[in-house]
């Protein structure tokens, strides 16, 4: 007979594991991946493969040679980081090598420098993405025109993104804005993984059903962005007006709330990046505050900031206050 095992109670476990959670997130990203490849062609697939492969490679190298600890690449967290990083960049030829640098920053600086999975204060994929955005502003904002992409062609015709159009404030931009249906399915310009709201929502529903995420962060994030932009839009809806400074015709006012939440990275950010367990608050009340902050900051950055898109910055900023939120938002004690 075997030796008897002895431990304190409990003697059973729910069978949940970090590995399962991470691979569920990966599975939930597949619909967005497929839609991205369908619209942006083989270059999107290449960006994804390169990003994921380099994330795994860097994590393995760092664990093996720098930290000298057993490798944890099997837990799938590097794959999540790789996929999210790839989703956040344009599917262009120059990204094939730039994304490798992003992966190094994401894994090396964003995660392993803090001690690996679970100890990073910021979402690693966003650290990588923001690093690239600041270091390679031209390449990172050169978007392929989705209507002119050839599936197997690597060189692309560039086109605008909806948020870029609004930021330019050109009088003719309003007419070029995509239809709601195109924004839902993802037939718009932008980072190839975040274009399709429907594909992202399918993944998010899967994560909700498997209890990997709770509804609190996505709902409060998207809800806040919707309500805040609705207020702005009601006060001053978008229109073509004359700029009193130089007398030229320009876009004025604020974009409508539906376009706000369907363009840019709000859907992907709210469902997959703000909900990253490591960098978001643990208590439900804290999660609501976190989502509220993300939504508010996103709309502020979009309307008054230098960048057309603010989801990455908003989430990173809220990541930095997560420890404070955790300290403040305690669960309700049973016996007090």
């Amino acid at each position, binding site marked *: 007979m*075997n*030796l*008897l*095992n*002895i*431990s*304190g109670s409990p003697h059973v476990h729910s069978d949940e594991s970090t590995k399962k959670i991470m691979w569920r997130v990966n599975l939930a990203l597949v619909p967005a991946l497929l839609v991205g490849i369908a619209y942006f062609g083989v270059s999107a697939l290449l960006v994804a493969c390169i990003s994921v492969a380099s994330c795994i490679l860097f994590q393995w190298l760092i664990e093996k040679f720098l930290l000298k600890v057993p490798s944890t690449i099997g837990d799938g967290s590097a794959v999540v980081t790789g996929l999210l990083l790839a989703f956040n960049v344009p599917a262009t030829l120059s990204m094939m090598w730039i994304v490798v640098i992003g992966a190094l920053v994401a894994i090396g600086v964003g995660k392993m420098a803090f001690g690996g999975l679970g100890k990073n204060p910021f979402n690693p994929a966003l650290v990588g993405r923001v690093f690239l955005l600041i270091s390679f502003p031209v390449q990172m904002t050169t978007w392929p025109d989705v209507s002119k992409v050839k599936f197997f062609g690597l060189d692309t015709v560039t086109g605008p993104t909806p948020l870029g159009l609004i930021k330019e404030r050109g009088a003719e931009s309003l007419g070029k804005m995509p239809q709601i249906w195109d924004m839902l399915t993802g037939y718009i310009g932008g980072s190839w993984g975040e274009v399709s709201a429907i594909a992202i929502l399918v993944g998010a529903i899967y994560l909700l059903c498997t209890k990997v995420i709770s509804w609190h962060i996505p709902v409060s994030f998207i809800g806040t962005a919707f309500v805040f932009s609705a207020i702005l839009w009601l006060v001053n809806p978008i229109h073509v007006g004359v700029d009193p400074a130089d007398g030229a015709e320009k876009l004025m006012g604020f974009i409508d709330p539906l376009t706000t939440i369907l363009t840019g990275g709000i859907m992907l950010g709210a469902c997959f990046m703000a909900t990253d367990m490591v960098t978001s608050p643990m208590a439900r009340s804290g999660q609501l505050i976190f989502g509220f902050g993300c939504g508010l900051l996103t709309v502020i950055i979009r309307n008054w900031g230098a960048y057309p898109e603010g989801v990455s910055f908003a989430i990173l900023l809220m990541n930095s206050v997560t420890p404070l939120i955790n300290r403040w938002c305690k669960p309700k004690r049973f016996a007090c």
Partner: protein
Amino acid sequence: MTQQILIAVLVLGVIGAFFAVVLYFVAQKFKVVEDPLIDEVAEVLPGANCGGCGKAGCRAFAEACVAQGNLDGLRCAPGGDAVAQKIAQLLGCAVEQGEPQVAVVRCHPANCGDKRRSNYDGLKSCAFQNTVYTGESGCPFGCLGCGDCVDACQFDAIHMDPATGTPVVDEDLCTACGACAKACPRRIIELRNKGKKNRRVFVSCVNREKGAVAMKSCANACIGCGKCAKVCPMEAITISDNLSYIDFTKCIACRKCVTECPTHAIVDVNFPSPAVKPAPKPETPTAAEAAK
């Protein structure tokens, strides 16, 4: 231009002077009078904050020294006599020379591996395992092997031996601060005098069970037979609760007890040739019981 510079200098000067006066009074008001001797004593201490002295850290120890004015009952084990001398000089008092000590693990490393009766699968902490059950060896007094002592050591002087699952003390690094002894939930580790040329004799067992019961969990258990006490020329050995204990202040390391012990529970270290052949298994447990 000159005027502007002048105004700036004047304004800044006045503000500076004003706050200087304010700060002066605030400093007077909230002044904390602290004996400068405390800083000097703290400077002499090793600064490891090991807590071996029973104080919260080195600074707290320095405060206690200065408050007391002498070193009675206060000893910094890591610093040893050298530090004690320096503090005594600072305080202007005499200090007794203490015998250098070392941590000694009183659980036999041999024969534990093959006597494992269970597999502990819980939190890696001796303090916790001790509340769950006897431990893997089945000996309710023996080493639990989770390394609470290793975690407690600030000097990297104690390590688990992977072959035996019991800790081994590095005599050169050990400062006898006693942190490991405090961390051990079973009080297996004891501070004993280092002895001449580091040669020591001690009972490597703390099992207080009756001989036959103790032998069931470990072949090298002390069965309290008392043979060692009979041969000891210095009357250094006492038997209580089925357990022998050698008083290190009386022991002259003659090693008579080592050869006499039927279970080889008494261990000698750093002697040039072993007094007994390292035969960890006793011949017949019944003989040992009969002796009782």
